[in-house]
């Protein structure tokens, strides 16, 4: 029994060490686990058209809103040249709550880090224009014809944020 306790404790320390490393020192999220500060080189200039980013399945996003830097691998879409973060509620709201507290984020692409500002997209028309491209990219479903909201649907929420360049100092 004593040996079992020691083995359990060693496993716990190992697991704790791994989670601590992943959260603080891994240079970003590990698989789907949130991480800390993103590793990369600050980009010399920002693209004016982010469409090239769509080749990546996920976008690495870091928020420094709270005490510890928090980074996550998130769904996204570059639409009309701008990056849009797509945060489904069923993945939790860890990033959303941080963005609502402080919209400044850092994104990583090809080893380069870009500063951006996350602006929530709530306008019906803007959301409507994103619907078909988001459904095609994320769920591989092509829609056509009329689209109408399902009355009383308990659909998962999708929080959308457009990333803009930060204001010039």
């Amino acid at each position, binding site marked *: 029994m004593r040996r079992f306790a020691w083995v359990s404790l060693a*496993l716990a320390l190992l*697991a704790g060490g791994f989670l601590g490393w992943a959260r603080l020192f891994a240079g970003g999220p590990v698989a789907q686990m949130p991480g800390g500060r993103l590793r990369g080189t600050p980009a010399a200039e920002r693209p004016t058209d982010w469409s090239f980013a769509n080749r990546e399945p996920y976008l690495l996003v870091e928020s420094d809103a709270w005490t510890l830097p928090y980074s996550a691998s998130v769904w996204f879409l570059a639409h009309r040249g701008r990056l849009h973060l797509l945060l489904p509620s069923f993945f939790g709201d860890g990033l959303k709550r941080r963005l609502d507290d402080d919209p400044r984020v850092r994104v990583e692409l090809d080893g380069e880090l870009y500063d951006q500002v996350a602006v929530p997209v709530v306008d019906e028309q803007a959301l409507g224009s994103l*619907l078909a491209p988001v459904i095609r990219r994320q*769920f591989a479903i092509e829609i056509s014809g009329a689209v109408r*909201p399902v009355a009383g649907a308990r659909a998962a929420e999708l929080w959308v944020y457009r990333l803009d360049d930060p204001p010039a100092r």
Partner: protein
Amino acid sequence: MRPAAVLGILATLALCACGPWGPKGVFPGGPLRGAAEPTPADWSFTEAHPLIAIETRGRWFRHSVTILCVAAEGKLYVMARHAPTKRWVQNAIADPRVRLEIGGRIYEGRAVRVDDAQDDSPVARAFLRKYVGVEVERARALTGPPAPGDDRAEVWTFRIDPPEAPS
């Protein structure tokens, strides 16, 4: 059992955040715990559950993850985005026997990959109703790997059929 042993076990489970009994959020897990219920004739009740757990059989270990599901025409379907990279998908292709945890109950079944390439797919429409909250006139599931330059996810759909009767 000594308090140190209990503490050690609890700490392990808490820190691993996955435990031996199924996934916890984004953390994959092991075997789902519990006896299986009879297979439902109609899976429509799953509409109330946005996330379910699926347990597949790997070569050495059971592997369970949290996934999306949709019921269409009484049958249950589960989807995998970027499917070829997912361990549970590879396991299900090699051995279709799966267990599902839906609303705290366990069900057994066989995951059968379906090629839902109809011009208007009831599964795709049900998916959009459940997860996007929209009714669309036409919904076509794009199957197979995306063409070069096409940035859509590769989504595989599995229908959950009743388990094979023991021989």
